[in-house]
C-alpha cells in the first residue's frame, strides 16, 4: 500500500511535461514586467527616491525592511553601490528602471533567458520591497512568478536562446516537477483566498461585490448600471467564493477543468475591466495560463506523442488528471 502510494506520488510530481508552460510563463511575465515599467515610468522617482524628492523616502520603507531581515534585496544596496562610482541616486534608479525594461524585453524574446530571469526577479523584488508601503497583491504574485521562472529549466524551445544554440532539452520529468510546483501553489492561493472570503458574511449577500465596485478609485462601472444588476450581486459574491475555494479540486478533474479555468480567467478579466486592476489581473491570468493552459483539452484536439528535435519522444497533451483525478 505504502509503495503504491509512493509510486503514485512520484508519478504525480515528476510527470513528464513539455516546455510549453514555461514559454507561456516566460513571455507572459516579460510582458507583465514591461507594462509595470512603462506604466510607472512617470512616477518612478516619486515612488522610490530616498533623498526627499519623492512622496515617501525610500529610507523609511527600507528601515521597516531591516526590522524583518537584513538579507531582503532592496534598491538601497544598488544606490550605495552606485555612489561608489559617483552615480547619483536618480541615475541609479533610472538605470534600475532601464535594466528591468531590458530584462523584460529579453524574457519576451527568450534572449539570455536565465540571466534575464535572475535580473528581473532581483530588481523587481528590490523595487517591491523598497516601495513596500506602496505595495499590493500584484507585487506578491509577480515575485512568485519570477521566482519560479528563475529556477525553472530555461531556455524553452520557443526562446531565441534555443534557436541560437540548440541543446538537449531539459528532462521532461524536471519540467513536470516545476510545473507541479506552480500548479499546487496556485491551488493554495485560490483555496486560502476563497476560504478567507467565505468566512465574511458580506460575500454571501452581495455587499462585498457592491463595495468593491462602488468604492473609489475602483468605481469604474457606472453606479446606475450596478444598481440595475443588483439582483445578480449576491450570486456574483457566492460564485467568487465557490470558484476560489473549489479551485484545488475542480481544476484537476478533467470534466470540470476547462469550465473552472475559463471561469477563473473570466473572473480576473472582470476584475481588470471593472476595477482597473489591470496588472493584477494580467499576472493572475499569466500564472493560470502557464499552470493549466497547456493541459486543457479543447474539442478536436488529441493527446499524443511527438518526436523532439533531439530524437527523444516527448509526451504532450496528457494531463496529470487523466491518470490522477486528485493530487492527493
Amino acid at each position, binding site marked *: 500500500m505504502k509503495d503504491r502510494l509512493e509510486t503514485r506520488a512520484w508519478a504525480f510530481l515528476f510527470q513528464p511535461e513539455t516546455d510549453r508552460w514555461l514559454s507561456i510563463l516566460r513571455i507572459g511575465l516579460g510582458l507583465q514586467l514591461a507594462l509595470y515599467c512603462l506604466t510607472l515610468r512617470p512616477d518612478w522617482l516619486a515612488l522610490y527616491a530616498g533623498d526627499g524628492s*519623492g*512622496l515617501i523616502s525610500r529610507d523609511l520603507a527600507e528601515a521597516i525592511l531591516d526590522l524583518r531581515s537584513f538579507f531582503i534585496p532592496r534598491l538601497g544596496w544598488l544606490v550605495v553601490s552606485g555612489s561608489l562610482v559617483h552615480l547619483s541616486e536618480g541615475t541609479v534608479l533610472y538605470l534600475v528602471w532601464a535594466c528591468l525594461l531590458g530584462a523584460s524585453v529579453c524574457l519576451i524574446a527568450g534572449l539570455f533567458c536565465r540571466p534575464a530571469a535572475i535580473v528581473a526577479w532581483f530588481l523587481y523584488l528590490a523595487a517591491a520591497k523598497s*516601495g513596500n508601503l506602496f505595495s499590493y497583491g500584484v507585487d506578491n504574485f509577480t515575485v512568485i512568478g*519570477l521566482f519560479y521562472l528563475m529556477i525553472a529549466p530555461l531556455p524553452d524551445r520557443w526562446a531565441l536562446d534555443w534557436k541560437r544554440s540548440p541543446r538537449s532539452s531539459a528532462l521532461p520529468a524536471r519540467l513536470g516537477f516545476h510545473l507541479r510546483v506552480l500548479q499546487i*501553489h496556485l491551488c493554495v*492561493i485560490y483555496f*486560502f483566498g476563497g476560504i478567507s472570503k467565505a*468566512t465574511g458574511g458580506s460575500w454571501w449577500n452581495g455587499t462585498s461585490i457592491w463595495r468593491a465596485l462602488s*468604492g473609489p478609485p475602483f468605481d469604474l462601472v457606472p453606479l446606475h448600471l450596478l444598481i440595475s444588476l443588483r439582483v445578480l450581486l449576491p450570486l456574483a459574491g457566492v460564485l467568487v467564493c465557490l470558484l476560489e475555494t473549489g479551485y484545488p479540486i475542480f481544476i484537476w478533474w478533467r470534466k470540470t477543468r476547462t469550465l473552472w479555468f475559463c471561469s477563473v480567467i473570466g473572473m480576473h478579466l472582470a476584475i481588470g475591466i471593472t476595477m482597473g486592476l489591470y496588472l493584477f489581473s494580467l499576472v493572475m491570468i499569466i500564472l493560470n495560463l502557464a499552470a493549466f493552459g497547456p493541459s486543457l483539452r479543447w474539442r478536436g484536439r488529441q493527446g499524443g506523442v511527438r518526436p523532439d528535435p533531439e530524437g527523444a519522444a516527448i509526451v504532450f497533451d496528457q494531463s496529470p488528471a487523466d491518470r490522477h483525478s486528485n493530487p492527493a
Partner: protein
Amino acid sequence: MTARHRRIYLSCFVSHFLLILLAATQDLVSILSEGENIFPPAFVRVWRQADIITSTALGNRLPDANPVRQVLTAYLHDAGIESGYGFFAPNVPNSYKLVFEVRYRDGRIEYELPEVAGSAAGIRVVALLDNIESMRYELLRRTTLKMLSFAIWREHPDATAIRAVFGRVTQPPIEGFLQGKQETYEFTSAYEFSFPSPGERQTAP
C-alpha cells in the same frame, strides 16, 4: 533524473510548501481573530492561539537578530510567499482619504490631495493609504504623514504649516444608495507640520 535527485527535489518541495501553508494559515487565522466573520465570537480565542502557533513556526517570535529568523524571513520574501492570500477578506474594507490643508501666513488655506502622474501609481497610493490606516506604531504613522506633507510643501514653499487630515470613506449599502444616501467621510486623525519659511534651509524630514 536519478532517485537521489528526486529526493533532493522532494525535500525542497516539502519545505517550500510547508512555509507557504504556514504563511497562508497565519494570514487566515489572523483575519479570523479580528472578528467580523461568520464564526461565533467564542472562536476568537482559538484563532488567536492558532495565530501564535503559526507565527512561532515561521520564526516571527524569535529575537530580531536571530540568524534563523533572518534567513527564513529573507527566503519568504524572496519567494514572494511571506504573506497570505486574504485579499478583500473577510469583507471588502473601507477606503481612506488623505487631505492636506495648506496654510499660509496671511491666513489663506488651500486643500491638496497626494498626487501622482499615472493611474498605475494611483493604485499604489491607495495601497499606501490602506497601509497608513493599519499602522499601529504611532511614530511610524506620524513620520509617514510628515513625509507626504513635505512632498506637498515642496509644491507650496510659501506655506507656513500643513495639516494632514486622514479619514475613512464609507460607501452606503445599495439600499441606502437607492434612498439617496451618499458616501460619508469620517475623520480619524490629523497631524500638523510646520516647515521652514522661505529663505531658511530646506531639508527633508
